[in-house]
């Protein structure tokens, strides 16, 4: 299974890179860059590089197996309001195979820009046409595959591939259907800070150009690189991520940063900011866990001060398979710790946090190890 995955992973990357060399001048389908997941938006898309406890940004990176091993099924939907009443939603269905830990995620996002009253003038300035139409109706149907977390020396490595089928209709008249792909890799180093992660992804790479009317446009391919910090001694419950985003087929580039803090077992708060073209925009939000439900809310500002609101509800079922092994891994970590092998102990505790982000004992142990290793 892993060999097959590696083959597909390499093949798709070669195809993507070869295609990028022949891209058209303009990168279209911008709506695929619009994130609907409140958790991801609150961190301003900076969670490309995941530590063991960051959010679940499958829209940003397919290398998600660092964080979702405890999730078997997740169903979430999001409602977006703001920017002249546009609406978006996202639904994710996750399945992790018990026998080898590979995670499959089927997810779908949709976006509607609402109705537009259209008045067309001819060249002499006379009104020739008037009607009301839907401005934009677009959607992504995607499948993400992320194999089991690999352990290489002191690093935990995850990879993944997402294949996306994109449909977009503008003004009820012009439609584009195309396939896009995401690939990514994420490494977690347990010996620094005490947890430091580095991630790189290629988003929205396409296999062909497309056009709504006559002009060819390329996919809005983005290269993202990010670092994540977790369990810093003086902020043990805080995760910080910093990311750089660069358009491959366009001149767009921006920076973003996000911070997620665990207030209690049930409550997370988030804050993010983005630097784009000299402007800074902000986001804030939180998650409240009630049994298997997680309620998410995020508000973010645009450059002009317009507020965009996202609300989401998330239902997850934890895996009994992995729950049984967590105590074993934690106990092994304690054994390493007591014997003075802090390196292996930190790997064990990091893996525990990977599978159960709310495992406070493991976080505390990692913080202690971080202090001792300094």
């Amino acid at each position, binding site marked *: 299974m892993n060999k097959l995955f590696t083959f597909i992973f390499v093949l798709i990357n070669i195809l993507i890179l070869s295609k990028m060399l022949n891209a058209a001048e*303009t990168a279209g389908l911008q709506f695929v860059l*619009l994130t609907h997941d409140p958790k991801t938006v609150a961190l301003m898309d900076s969670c490309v590089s995941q530590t063991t406890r960051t959010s679940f940004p499958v829209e940003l990176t397919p290398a998600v197996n660092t964080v979702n091993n405890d999730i078997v099924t997740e169903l979430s939907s999001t409602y977006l309001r703001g920017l*002249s009443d546009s609406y978006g939603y996202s639904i994710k269905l996750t399945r992790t195979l018990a026998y080898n830990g590979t995670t499959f995620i089927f997810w779908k996002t949709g976006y509607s820009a609402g109705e537009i009253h259209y008045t067309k003038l001819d060249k002499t300035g006379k009104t020739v046409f008037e009607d009301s139409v839907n401005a934009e109706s677009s959607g992504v149907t995607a499948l993400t595959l992320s194999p089991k977390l690999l352990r290489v020396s002191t690093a935990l490595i995850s990879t993944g591939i997402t294949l996306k089928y994109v449909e977009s209709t*503008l003004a009820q008249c012009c439609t584009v259907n195309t396939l896009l792909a995401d690939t990514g890799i994420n490494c977690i180093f347990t010996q620094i800070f005490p947890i430091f992660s580095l991630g790189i992804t290629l988003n929205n790479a396409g296999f062909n150009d497309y056009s709504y*009317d006559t002009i060819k446009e390329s996919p809005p391919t983005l290269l993202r690189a990010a670092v994540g910090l977790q369990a810093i001694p003086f902020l043990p419950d805080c995760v910080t991520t910093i990311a750089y985003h660069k358009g491959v087929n366009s001149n767009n580039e921006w920076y973003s940063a996000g911070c997620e803090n665990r207030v209690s077992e049930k409550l997370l708060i988030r804050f993010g900011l983005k630097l784009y073209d000299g402007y800074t925009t902000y986001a804030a939000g939180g998650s409240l866990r009630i049994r298997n439900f997680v309620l998410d809310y995020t508000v*973010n500002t*645009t450059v002009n001060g317009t507020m965009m609101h996202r609300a989401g509800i998330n239902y997850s079922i934890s895996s009994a398979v992995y729950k049984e092994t967590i105590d074993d891994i934690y106990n092994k970590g304690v054994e390493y710790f007591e014997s003075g092998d802090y390196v292996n102990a930190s790997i064990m505790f990091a893996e525990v946090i990977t599978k159960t982000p709310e495992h406070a004992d493991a976080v505390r142990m990692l913080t202690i190890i971080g202090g001792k290793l300094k």
Partner: protein
Amino acid sequence: MRNKMILHIFAGILIHNSTLCIALAEVILTQPTFDNYYSPPSGKGNRVSGVLNTYTSCGVMTKKTVLPVNTALFIITKGTPVSIDPRLYTEKQQYYPSVKEVYLYCTTVPGSEVISITAVDQENRVIDPELSFSYTISPEGKVELRMLLNTLLNTYLLTREIIVTLRTSTPSGETTEFISSPLLFFPDKRIVNIYNNIFYPHRDEYFIVNISGGNTEEKFEFSIYDLMGNIVYNKQSGVLNTGYGTTLTWDGEQKNSGVVVPSGTYFVQVLLLPQKTEVCNCKVVVIQ
């Protein structure tokens, strides 16, 4: 008299483009007496040449105010009335943001009576219901015509061009017709019209926002945002709102790049400067 009339028309046209010419026109208008510009009727049913002055009184003003000379200029011709393209005027001076009443003056033959007063818009539709007239006529034949604008006109959605026709009957039974040059009225309320909000840049189409009404000397900031809220185009209107309105256009170009933005939905925001009041917030779809 004929030479003076020609000179007067000439001056009236010149003042559209230069303040120097405005001063010249004022001299010409103020040196002779008002009656010197009156042409006596040349026959029953014929139109008569003459000159009028227009005075307006705004709602907040207590005394009659003389409009700038070019707007005060009325040209009455014999036969076909001279029509002055109002766009040639200095637009600021043609602007009537909150006029509630307009006074028109002319001089007819002593002892004449007013037969009818009509007003038509730019498409020759009678707009009397929106206006009410009263007049006084002196024994010397000086007519003061007072035109009251009701609220309907002031809230009318589009710029209105009004031409007033006054018919008088002389003691000898001849009819004299006075026709005003076009008077432009703009609603007090700011009106925003959006055109081509779905457009194809590669077909040389462009998006248009037209803002009319409101006060003069307004500037606007025109911004286009992409779906993520990033600014892709931003410009401050260099032209003041002149009554005819400010027209803001976008051909789809990304900010200072020379490259057209990708197909998709964009958000438009127009802010009134300097207070940054939002006057327009809408969507535009670019298709390539």
